[in-house]
């Protein structure tokens, strides 16, 4: 199941011209507000009729302006999760969830009880949307889209209207959805943290164009694309497996080049985790430092040094097969004489990894 999109559309003062593929898993469209992300998903949903388009989902041509084909939105079988939820106020949660079923062929798609369990909304079925919290509304909106038995899911910043606590509540459900349904998910976001936590594939959009596209782990650890996320938000993701829960509240993980410790992560040993390491939280040392408080000291090799326009520099490090980024000053890069191939030690404080930057990687 793959989605393939080629799209050109001109607005007054703005032109969109993109082409990309979204393989199974979650593909994040990342870019600033106004870069054209929502236009892309609206065109995929059929809510917008682009000047030129060829959109193919799972082998079915949804739109092809060359062949004068434009399937109307209700024939596309696309689950669209909108930023504001858009639940029907006159229907109960159950009726909202089953709305798409009225129009789908009988007895297709996932089970209502399976989805309500997955999203933890089984107790809300008889309520009206007005009686739900923001996080509950977001989960019902997710469930409604999945239960319409779609070919693919579109999500337009489904977390943007939620506060941090609610986001943390929804993120695990999104991970489960991504890993269980095997549907391609096109996920619009302008949050680097969300993208780093959820995306398998990344499409970077700037001013209506695709500037980079590829596997998320690769793009997130590339110094050349880091500026697209904002320097403070630049950071690579590591997949780490839990080894043991230790007595003093730390969790030991199998890192790529040695053990790593993080504040307690509540999951059984063996669970793979996806951990975002912010570039600015990584320190470099030429020799293994002794007498420091930082717990995670990992042997690494310098792969690339990218000197910025300002006082900073981004260093790409290889930890075995994995890649991470370190953001240091240009002065340090010169003092340490960092060049590709140099063996160094990456130093990461255990407490610098925020809980919301630790996700489930079972589906990877």
């Amino acid at each position: 199941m793959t989605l393939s999109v080629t799209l050109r559309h001109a607005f007054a003062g703005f032109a969109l011209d993109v082409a990309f593929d979204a393989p199974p898993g979650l593909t994040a469209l990342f870019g600033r507000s106004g870069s054209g992300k929502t236009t892309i998903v609206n065109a995929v949903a059929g809510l917008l009729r682009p000047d030129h388009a060829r959109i193919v989902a799972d082998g079915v041509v949804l739109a092809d302006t060359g062949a004068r084909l434009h399937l109307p939105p209700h024939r596309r079988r696309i689950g669209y999760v909108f930023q504001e939820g858009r639940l029907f106020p006159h229907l109960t949660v159950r009726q909202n969830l089953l709305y798409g079923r009225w129009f789908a062929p009988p007895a297709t798609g996932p089970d209502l009880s399976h989805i309500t369990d997955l999203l933890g909304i089984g107790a809300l079925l008889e309520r009206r949307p007005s009686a739900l919290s923001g996080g509950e509304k977001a989960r019902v909106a997710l469930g409604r889209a999945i239960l319409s038995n779609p070919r693919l899911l579109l999500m337009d910043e489904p977390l943007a209207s939620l506060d941090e606590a609610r986001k943390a509540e929804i993120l695990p459900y999104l991970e489960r959805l991504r890993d269980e349904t095997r549907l391609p998910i096109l996920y619009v976001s302008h949050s680097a943290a969300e993208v780093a936590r959820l995306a398998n594939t990344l499409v970077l959009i700037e001013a209506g164009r695709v500037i980079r596209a590829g596997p998320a782990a690769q793009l997130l650890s590339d110094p050349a694309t880091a500026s697209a996320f904002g320097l403070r938000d630049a950071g690579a993701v590591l997949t780490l497996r839990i080894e043991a829960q230790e007595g003093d509240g730390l969790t030991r993980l199998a890192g790529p080049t040695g053990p790593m410790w993080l504040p307690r992560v509540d999951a059984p040993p063996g669970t793979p985790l996806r951990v975002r390491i912010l570039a600015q939280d990584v320190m470099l040392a030429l020799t293994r430092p002794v007498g420091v408080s930082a717990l995670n000291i990992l042997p690494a090799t310098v792969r690339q040094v990218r000197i910025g326009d300002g006082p900073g520099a981004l260093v790409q490090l290889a930890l075995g097969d994995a890649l991470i980024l370190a953001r240091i000053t240009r002065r340090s890069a010169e003092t340490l004489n960092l060049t590709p191939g140099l063996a160094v030690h990456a130093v990461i404080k255990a407490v610098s990894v925020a809980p919301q930057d630790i996700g489930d990687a079972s589906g990877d």
Partner: protein
Amino acid sequence: MTDWLTPDEWRAFALSLRVSLVATAVSLPFGIFVAYALARWQFRGRQVLNGLVHLPLVLPPVVTGYLLLLTFGRNGWAGQFLEQWFGVVLAFRWTGAALAAGVMAFPLMVSAIRLAMEAVDPKLEAAARSLGASPVWVFVTVTLPLILPGIIAGTVLAFARAMGEFGATITFVSNIPGQTQTLPSAIHVFLQIPGGDAAAFRLVIVAIVVACSALVLSEWVSRAVARRIRGT
């Protein structure tokens, strides 16, 4: 109430009820359609349609009645067409009174429904389309339930207006007792004859009671329906 009103008065009241009910019921589908078109569609002639619908509100009712007579009278083009093809005659019949009442009440009905329609977020309708509903189903399952309070308000308003219709009716279908003599026409006649004050006064009370109950009922039903929709 039959004892309290004379047979003539009762007939006028019953006729007015029938005329108003038929006028409201027949114009409701058109009212919903026109309100939808004005609220949701951008088309050439939208302003013209809007003006046409609201014309009876600003024209002297006598003028509206006369225009109806010219068009739907036995010699009017629409009147001839209806008589030839459907055997329907409107001029000087109670059906004509219903047409006049419907036309006069139409702007009120359309305005109330259109107002409710404009309050429905088109994003909800787009969400319904993405879930597989065709435009007709979107209207039936999302738009219609959400504008129900507006439809009720518009219907009751139109009914009350139809009950009170006088100028266009008397011009178009005259004032034939038992045929086209509606409640307002009867009041008018009683006021012309010496000693008719008491009969006129009884009908005035009937008119006030009907209008007030219609308004109270509409307010109550609209609120109940709106509460149900909001789910509180």
